[in-house]
């Protein structure tokens, strides 16, 4: 009886020792991995900071304006290009024959609640 108990105890001790060793080892590995990941995160964050700064540098208004003048020729929206939606003549007024209540254009004034329409202009070369 005692012998069986001793044997059981011994094997339990060995099992616990082994288990503990394994867990400790795994923990150490994980910790190393964690440290590695953390330093990677720090490096990524640094990169993000640099990229953010670079992005800001690239989209600064002065540069965009210069690029636009060189390649696009977009102009400032002027007040004459903005209308209240009620001011836009709809088909009903323009050509009474083609009126249809299901047309999305006719429904637009209620839906948009009289918001402004913005029309951007493109300079003709």
């Amino acid at each position, binding site marked *: 009886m*005692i012998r069986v*108990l001793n044997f059981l*105890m011994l094997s*339990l*001790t060995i099992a*616990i020792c082994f*288990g*503990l060793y394994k*867990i*400790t080892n795994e*923990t150490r590995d994980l*910790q190393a991995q*964690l*440290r590695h990941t*953390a*330093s990677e*995160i*720090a490096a990524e*964050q*640094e990169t993000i*900071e*640099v990229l*953010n*700064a*670079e992005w*800001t*540098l690239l989209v*600064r*208004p*002065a540069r965009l*304006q210069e690029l636009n003048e060189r390649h696009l020729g977009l102009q*400032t*929206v*002027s*007040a*004459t290009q*903005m*209308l*209240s939606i009620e*001011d*836009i*003549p*709809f*088909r009903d007024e*323009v*050509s009474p024959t*083609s009126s249809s209540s299901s047309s999305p*254009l006719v429904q637009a004034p209620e839906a948009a609640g009289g918001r*402004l329409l*913005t029309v951007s202009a493109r300079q003709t070369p």
Partner: protein
Amino acid sequence: MSRTSRRDKGEGPPFVRIRLAIAGLFMLAAYAVIGGRLLWLAIDEETPSRERVSQLEVPVLERADIVDRNGRILATNVPVDALYADTRHIWDPKEAAQELARVLPELDVVELEQKLSSGAAFEWIKRDLTPRQYASVRALGIAGLAVKREQRRVYPNGHSAAHLLGYVNLDNRGIAGVEASLDTTLRDPKRGGEPVTLSIDLRVQHVLEDELASAIETFSAEAAAGIVLDIHTGEVLGMASLPDFDPNAPNYDPNNADEDTKARMFNRASLGVYEMGSTFKAMTTAMALDAGVVTINSTYDVRKPIRIGRFTIHDYKPKTHPLTVTEIFEYSSNIGTAHMAMDIGASRQQIYFDLFGMFKPAPIELPEVGAPLLPQKWGDVTTMTVSYGHGIAVSPIQTAAAFAAVANGGLYIAPTLLKRPAGTGVPVRRVVSENVSAEMRTLLRRAVTEGTGGQADVPGYPVGGKTGTAEKAVGGGYDEKSLISSFIGVFPALSPRYLVLIILDEPQGTEETHGYATAGWTAAPTTGKVVSRIGPLLGVRPEPIPLEVTDGATQMAAQSDR
């Protein structure tokens, strides 16, 4: 051993069995404790390490970013390598200095040798190394040299908003602009890297700088400054001063700078004080109306210049009939305004000026704020001249805040460079009544439609405002040729939301302006250009311009039908 002997043991005297059982129990308890402790250690070890990692994940930010009101970066940090030496480990300072100077030619060999032989454990050699320089220093393989990762402050927008942002020294301490005034906030670790949000709108700032630059070019002006202000919150959306500098490399030593550098570093919008000229008539007219000494229909005889002591007050273009208060404002009559000021009286005038914030430096978050230059005695001459902006010099930001009070319903609001969080109250101080402010808005609009400020008007964005042309004080007198031309406009005119102030230093007339360098020909059109560009950006609803239904529109409608 045989079975019998074992049975003998088991059937021994009872006290032996009890002793064995007690010993066994002790053993069991000991194992249980050890086992439990081991298990606990294995499980518990994770907890402290997690804390350590979370600290690693959020690196301590040395200095918070500065962003504009829409979250666009104005100032941020990038990591750089900084080279230092532990001179105790340098074997041969002379050789090391020569080698280093070969790789980093900007360093002085003699100075370097002194540094390297100092025996100090820490000596900076060069901050912010480029990656290439870092590689070549490493390749030298000199013992005792090491690099440290540092944060370097960068301003990705370059010159834009340079004066208000300011800059930092090598140790990342702010020494000018909001970098200096908000230094403790920016370095506060409790903020956890949260950026400081300014009231500036980068796009508005750019438009302002762009138009000021072209005004300087067109009118060959010495310098220019501009402010865009939200008159209901006091938030500064743009503040520019030209010529300017690059805060990334200010290289500025105030004790040892030439005139040109000093001019570049100077913030004309807040630090410069100027005799603003006729823009002050807006304040004088508002106080006359508020004090009840005039109505907009009261008349004054402006046919003769005012002579008082050795002073004579003239009008730029004298009128031959008495003028109403409205007309005095439209035509910008000095004589009429001076009469009005005399009716207000010196003491009431001073009370109003104080309420308008004219007697104290503008309460704005900048170290560079100019103190107003006030008259020493406030006699009749002073009462008359300050009424049209002479004999008193104030900063443009001070004037902008006072002008805002005239137009916004009569409330003085301290200008600020910090974005006001939504829903927070704005501290205000009543200066003139709401009715007076409404009347002033009409007058300001008329000064543009009928008076001197016509060129500031923009189709769709009606501007109300006042021109101001002052001669520069040179020596003891005034120089007719060097002018300070300014325009302060609010838009949309009758229910204004934004104020634009433009001030040009010594503009010259051009062919288009028929040689005139006065504000109506220089600062007013510049203001108009700024308004036409920032109006759509700020989402100001333009006044409807009647649409002509052209054939094109009809055709388009017809085409979409098919």
